[in-house]
């Protein structure tokens, strides 16, 4: 399978603090890649840097290269908006705009001529169906989106991202603030989407990673500890931190006395 992203010696900084340190990583085209690791490891930062969403943070800067389809995403000739339309991203917490459900779905495409020709209604219906929200909202598309439940809102956010027509979708812990049932719905949705597009998902839930992942990237303290096929890593983690994390015990700290 071809590679989609290639990170070479990529370091990501907020101010002088490196959040990700000299990461080398490839993410292949197609399928679902899960980024896992303890909280604070830099998973989200890594994910957000894939479509340059970190650029908005005042003291962010990076070193090394991030290639997307063999092209440096910081290349001067590259259109940032184009990149973001190809590489969609859904945040941890759904952020809906004031306005109706319909407005929210088409928010990213309202000004694209080709999409207008296709018809916003059609696109809205297609994407809402894709995220399984159509049945719940089709009779109140014009009512404010604020009234949706958290789970519905997250699915609406995914629909909004899909409406733009991305080839890749980045998901940043999309279920972390949801109840169990909504989370399951999202997981099913992600699994479904993974058949037709590349998905990179950050999660700290092991079961979720196990259920979804084709590939796994394990990050710990800003370093890529291990990356590869999910089956391999879950059954034979090579790295001690990975193993500890997967087995659910804290990583051993050699400076501490061994617990009795």
């Amino acid at each position, binding site marked *: 399978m071809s590679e989609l992203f290639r990170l070479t010696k990529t370091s990501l900084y907020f101010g002088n603090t490196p959040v990700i340190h000299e990461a080398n990583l490839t993410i292949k085209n197609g399928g679902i890649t899960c980024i896992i690791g303890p909280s604070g490891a830099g998973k989200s930062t890594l994910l957000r840097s894939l*479509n340059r*969403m970190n650029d*908005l*943070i*005042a*003291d962010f800067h990076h070193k090394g290269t991030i290639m997307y389809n063999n092209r440096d995403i910081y290349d001067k000739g590259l259109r940032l*908006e*184009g*990149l*973001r*339309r*190809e590489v*969609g*991203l859904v*945040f941890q*917490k759904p*952020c809906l*705009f004031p306005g109706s459900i319909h407005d929210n779905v088409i*928010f*990213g*495409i*309202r*000004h694209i001529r080709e999409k207008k020709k296709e018809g916003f209604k059609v696109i809205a219906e297609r994407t809402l169906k894709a995220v399984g929200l159509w049945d719940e909202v089709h009779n109140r598309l014009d009512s404010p989106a604020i009234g949706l439940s958290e789970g519905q809102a997250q699915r609406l*956010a995914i629909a*909004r*991202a899909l409406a*733009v027509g991305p080839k890749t979708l980045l998901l940043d812990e999309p279920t972390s603030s949801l109840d169990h049932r909504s989370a399951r719905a999202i997981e099913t949705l992600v699994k479904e989407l993974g058949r037709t597009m590349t998905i990179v998902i950050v999660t700290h839930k092991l079961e979720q990673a196990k259920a979804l992942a084709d590939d796994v990237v394990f990050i710990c303290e800003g370093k890529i500890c291990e990356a590869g096929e999910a089956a391999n890593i879950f059954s034979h983690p090579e790295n001690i931190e990975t193993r500890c994390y997967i087995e659910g015990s804290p990583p051993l700290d050699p400076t501490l006395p061994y617990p009795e």
Partner: protein
Amino acid sequence: MRVRVKDICFFSLCLMAAATAISLLFIIIGYILWHGAPAINFAFLTEGSRDFGAAGGVFYQTTGTVLLMFTAGLIALPIALGTVLFSHVYLGPSYKKTTDLFIYALNGVPTIIFGLLGYIIIGEGLHLGVSWVTGSIILAVMILPSMAVSIDEALSAMPHKYRDAALVLGLGRWHLIRTLLLPRSLPGVLTGLFLGLARAAGETAAIMFTATAFSGVGLPRGISEPVATLQTHILVLAGEATNPRALTNAWGAALILVTLVLALSLTAMFIRRQVRMEAEI
């Protein structure tokens, strides 16, 4: 026990300060009302002034003040909005502090300096003379920063998540502005507009030798004619403080001016408060 005594002294001093401050407002407003109200009648509001302000009304002065302030707002608003949008969308956050510093600097420029330079640069340099348009441009420059600050406050108060959520969909800068920032900046635009108008309406030093004429002014027939304003009218009549008729008319004009300015500021405060309440929900 000594603590208690100290506390009582401290609080009563503070209370006296606050009472003084508040009563100052009431004394001033009351004084203006007391002296200005007798001048106010239908003729005063609808007639031109006669006898060098000692008789007649302040109709042209009132319209002049309103015209100047509106045109100043008209010129300043797009520039202020453009400035803030540019610094928010096109410049990175690292430039924010510098930008703010400049805007605050402009906000601090004494208004008399705007008047002097405006006269030289706009009045003479651009050959616009002592006129409505000269005054409008000068006032526009003067109210530009306070408008920018209001708009900037509204945009900065918008949580970053909205901007992120729009950008992540691949929206271009212009579309980000159109779909998100413009609607969100509206309360700030309105607050800034009203604050700016209030400032422009109350300003004298910047226009007293750039935009106004004392006598012979009706409704301006064009932007290159001078206007009469309440502010400069009061200024001239203030020089005649011993002529009771002139003084009464000065107070009448002051009452109209204060009413206008306070109405504008209160509207601005009201809008800003609505926005704050919304932001807190």
